[in-house]
């Protein structure tokens, strides 16, 4: 009778189960671990995930990009050794200005972290770390490491945050060594996702992710002493 039971599928399964739970604890734990590892095989196991086939989207000049709480439209770019009376002439070269419109489409003030890190230059080799860091020992830096100072263009006041529902005419100001600059400049933009932080369960803008790339013609701007207003 027992032999007959063991020939059926149910009987064989019961026999395997009894064998498994009769193993020592260490073997049972190891077995469960190996079983879970096998379960990952259909999804690629421990193989390196393939890179995303499509990179950041290419945006045309003048086309708005959604960067989490912000909507940015890059309009033009210029450079000059002395573009504004707000920050004085450059001592090492020139200022590079990426000019556009920035709108806060969220319902609260935009955090400083997002304001400081949603746009980066690419391709330049003579960019300084920031307008405040001009020490030759620390400069130039790779373009994606260069920080900008964000100005409200009409009155050249610094924007450390922007108010919900308002659109500002802005200038992202970088400082560069020398005055040899290309005739066009490319910027990468980054977006954020509103979600709960896994650390303290507080909702905030997280997961900085590449969104787009814009290439904009770069021309020499007007010196502030010759400009009709202080607008960069």
């Amino acid at each position, binding site marked *: 009778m027992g032999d007959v039971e063991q020939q059926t599928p149910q009987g064989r399964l019961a026999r395997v189960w009894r064998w498994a739970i009769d*193993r020592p*604890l260490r073997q049972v734990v190891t077995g469960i671990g190996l079983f879970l590892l096998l379960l990952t095989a259909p999804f690629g196991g421990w193989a390196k995930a393939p890179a995303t086939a499509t990179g950041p989207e290419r945006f045309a000049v003048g086309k708005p990009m959604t960067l989490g709480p912000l909507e940015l439209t890059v309009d033009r770019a210029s450079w000059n050794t002395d573009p504004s009376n707000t920050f004085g002439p450059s001592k090492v070269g020139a200022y590079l200005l990426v000019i556009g419109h920035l709108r806060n489409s969220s319902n609260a*003030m935009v955090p400083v972290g997002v304001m400081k890190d949603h746009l980066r230059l690419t391709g330049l080799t003579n960019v300084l770390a920031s307008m405040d860091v001009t020490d030759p020992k620390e400069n130039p830096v790779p373009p994606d490491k260069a920080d900008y100072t964000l100005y409200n263009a*009409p*009155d050249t006041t610094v924007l*450390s*945050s922007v108010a919900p529902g*308002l659109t*500002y005419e802005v200038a992202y100001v970088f400082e560069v060594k020398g005055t040899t600059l290309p005739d066009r400049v490319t910027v990468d933009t980054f977006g954020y996702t509103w979600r709960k932080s896994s650390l303290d369960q507080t909702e905030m803008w997280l997961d900085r992710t590449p969104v787009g790339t814009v290439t904009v013609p770069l021309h020499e701007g007007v010196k502030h002493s010759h400009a009709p207003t202080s607008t960069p």
Partner: protein
Amino acid sequence: MTSIASRIPVRSRVGTGILIVAALSLGRVVTDHMPGQDRHERPFTTAAKVGQTVHLRTGDVVVTKVDGGKAIATPIEADASPGLWVAIDFTWTPRADTSVLGYKVVRTTTGDTYDSLLGRNVSFCGNSIPGLPESCRMAVEMPPDRMPGAVVDIAPVFDSPGYDSLATVDLGITDETVKKWQARTDVVKIPMNTVGTGS
């Protein structure tokens, strides 16, 4: 070597499983009936209008004046807004040592918030002496169409006013007020805060 099966009787294992499932179910039921974060962290709110004194945990606050315009000038800088500025004067009289009014946020009828400590917004209000009134100023820039019906939330904390006392003061802004501010050509002057009877 001892196996799992021989160490724990079948009835005991089943009983333990049932108890675990029952405990998890009970936990879920209790969790579902607990008040949410919005409710148990909500502040103790007192609604008021301009000119009415609100007694907060560490002192008394009264909004004394509401003004607005396209541009402001502080002793530090002058800022023109792509929207409109709303400037709020208020008096703060602390009762205790912990007397800073850190939370000063304008809130619209649709829930948008404008924190006076962020961006180009202005917040002149210090750590005053208990019993001595301080004339404070704040200003925030916002879209004109979101101004009517806006209130200012004031609390003696810096981050969220949860658990604490909160004054919610109706700024009394109407469509007519906004039109008047949009037509202004002069700059709204925002002086520094003063302590004592001066203003």
